[in-house]
């Protein structure tokens, strides 16, 4: 308890400091309100049902400094070339320690009305827009989410007005530095009005072994008949902590694809909550988690079928080596009026070592009677017979394992419809597993 109070005090002291540094802006009252809530809330513990497989106590052992506090410090610009997606034209937004960097970013021309920007800039130039669209509902928030609100400062914002399409994908690259042990807290907003389309690739990276804490809040609103695909590549430093809550709301006849591709960090916790608030909605949640050494990767998904005639499809696959620990908790709620719901969930993991482990918890809550729902979770080893087959052609044991890993994750990877990104993800997979690429 002491440790927790100490760390809360640390962040609250930082907040006092923050108020002196940051001039008055439209977030002032939001931050103040959040700081009170933060002060009165407790960090989740393993006694909380939603956190029973994930201990966050290592995060509380560190004093991270909210990055806006050392913004003035002279810092060498990071080299971003290796993170760019080869041969893919994008709108590039680069954030260093959660703060937009104009020099490194390159946002192309877009049609009138479309906004691809950062929260800080918009709060200065278009405060009405922010006031209108920044969600302040926080009934599901925990201490981490309040902490994000306490220091609301920057993040990326994408707004697509009715009937517009953003042709080029948007690549949001978040780089953490290896000095100052930063607390990096993006507050991201995506608003897709009716009949719109966009692909958004978010990526979180840090230099090897650097210690920092990324604590993200993202709101995504997908209006009628819109098609939005959202990727998150989490390739943080293996000493970093990563907590992300993404809230999605979908309206009638929209299609939303979410990819959580998880490679890095010491502890990662992802909450992906989506509400299907209209008819004929399609939702696809894909996930890939690769853990080695002592990594802990937790995904909690929640799909709320609030209206009839919708379909959701969830496919999560994990590969865990060494002493890595995976968690998958997938909740599907089908409300009483949500008749003709189709909801499918599948979670499969492969353990490459005897010390790796996974906790899988599917939860179906169904209150409608005319629905098709299924879930399945499997945990296993690489297929012995396939391993023998590949080796019987002269392929070495190590290469054969790489091929089997590639085969195991293929149904997730093949859903990435941007070839250049698919290539980048494939490269990352094998880099992460220290294996040969196929």
């Amino acid at each position, binding site marked *: 308890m002491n440790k927790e109070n100490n760390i809360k005090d640390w962040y609250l002291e930082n907040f006092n400091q923050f108020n002196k540094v940051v001039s008055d802006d439209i977030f002032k009252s939001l931050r103040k309100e959040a700081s009170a809530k933060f002060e009165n809330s407790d960090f989740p513990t393993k006694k909380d049902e939603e956190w029973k497989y994930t201990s966050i106590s290592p995060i509380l052992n560190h004093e991270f400094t909210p990055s806006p506090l050392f913004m003035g410090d002279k810092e060498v610009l990071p080299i971003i070339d290796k993170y760019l997606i080869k041969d893919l034209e994008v709108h590039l937004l680069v954030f260093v320690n959660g703060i937009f960097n104009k020099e490194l970013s390159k946002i192309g021309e877009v049609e009138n009305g479309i906004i691809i920007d950062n929260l800080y800039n918009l709060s200065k130039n278009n405060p009405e827009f922010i006031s209108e669209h920044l969600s302040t509902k926080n009934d599901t928030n925990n201490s981490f989410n309040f902490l994000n609100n306490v220091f609301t400062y920057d993040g990326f914002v994408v707004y697509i007005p009715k009937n517009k399409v953003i042709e080029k994908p948007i690549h949001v690259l978040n780089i953490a530095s290896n000095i100052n042990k930063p607390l990096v807290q993006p507050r991201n907003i995506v608003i897709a009005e009716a009949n719109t389309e966009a692909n958004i690739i978010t990526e979180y990276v840090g230099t090897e072994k650097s210690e920092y804490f990324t604590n993200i809040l993202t709101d995504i609103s997908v209006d009628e008949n819109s098609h939005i695909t959202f990727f998150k590549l989490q390739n943080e430093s293996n000493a970093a902590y990563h907590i992300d809550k993404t809230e999605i709301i979908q309206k009638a006849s929209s299609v939303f694809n979410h990819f959580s591709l998880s490679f890095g960090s010491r502890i990662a916790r992802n909450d992906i909550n989506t509400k299907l608030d209209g008819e004929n909605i399609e939702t696809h949640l894909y996930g890939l988690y690769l853990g080695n050494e002592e990594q802990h990767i937790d995904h909690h998904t929640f799909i709320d079928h609030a209206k009839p005639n919708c379909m959701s499809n969830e496919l999560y696959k994990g590969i865990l080596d060494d002493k890595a620990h995976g968690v998958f908790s997938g909740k599907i709620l089908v409300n009483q009026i949500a008749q003709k719901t189709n909801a499918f969930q599948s979670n499969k993991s492969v353990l490459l070592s005897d010390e790796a482990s996974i906790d899988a918890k599917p939860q179906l809550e169904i209150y409608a009677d005319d629905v098709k729902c299924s879930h399945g979770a499997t945990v296993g080893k690489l*297929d*012995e*017979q*396939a391993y*023998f*087959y*590949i*080796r*019987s*052609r*002269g*392929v*070495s*044991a190590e*290469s*054969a394992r790489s*091929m*089997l890993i*590639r*085969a195991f*994750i*293929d*149904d997730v*990877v*093949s859903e990435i419809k941007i070839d250049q990104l698919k290539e980048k993800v494939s490269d990352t997979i094998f880099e992460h597993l220290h294996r040969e690429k*196929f």
Partner: protein
Amino acid sequence: MIKIKNLHANVEGTEILKGIDLEVNPGEIHAIMGPNGSGKSTLANVLAGHESYEVTEGEIIFENKNIVEMAPDERAREGLFLAFQYPIEIPGVSNSVFLKTAINEIRKHKGEEEISAKDFLALIREKAEVLGMDSSLISRSVNQGFSGGEKKRNEILQLLTLNPKLAILDETDSGLDIDALKIVAHGVNKFKNDNNAVILVTHYQRLLDYIIPDFVHVLYKGKIVKSGDKNLALELEERGYDWIIKEQPQAV
């Protein structure tokens, strides 16, 4: 080529092979026949080095080396090939990457250079043509979405491309219609020459109409109980296995 001496093998503690002796010389085709459960597939898998099988006694001398302790990939690099009864699908790994990796590992083992992209493509085209296969399959994932017949044909394509010294075909004929059977047999006959050898594991005589064996062996309860020439296969087709089984001394 290969000399199998008093080979005993277990799977999960149960003895399946109970003393097999067999010698195959370059230029020969041997057919191994026998009723279900006699140990035919086990023999094929043990020869290829499947790690679920434990060799408890005996030797497998392949090209003058005892390969009993060798890993399956080493055996393959030494020139042994097993065409699988149930070929495996490998989604996300193309036939091209798969075969090229295999060819290059074998080449490396022989101290040869890696195959060039151009030579590789030419090789695949040539071999695919023998089997009436479209060479576009090369960019498809290994066996994924292939019909049973296509999978078996793909095994023979691998055989032709890797060009081993000894090919073991495990029930390659099962599940094939007569046209597919002819194509597969044609592929095997193309492969065959005076310097290599084939072991055909089969339940039916039908394949032997198209690939003529020099020797036919009957496996029963983990032992070779009868050997002969191609006429033995014809006799088995007519009379079944019962007469051979009845000739066997009863187990004590």
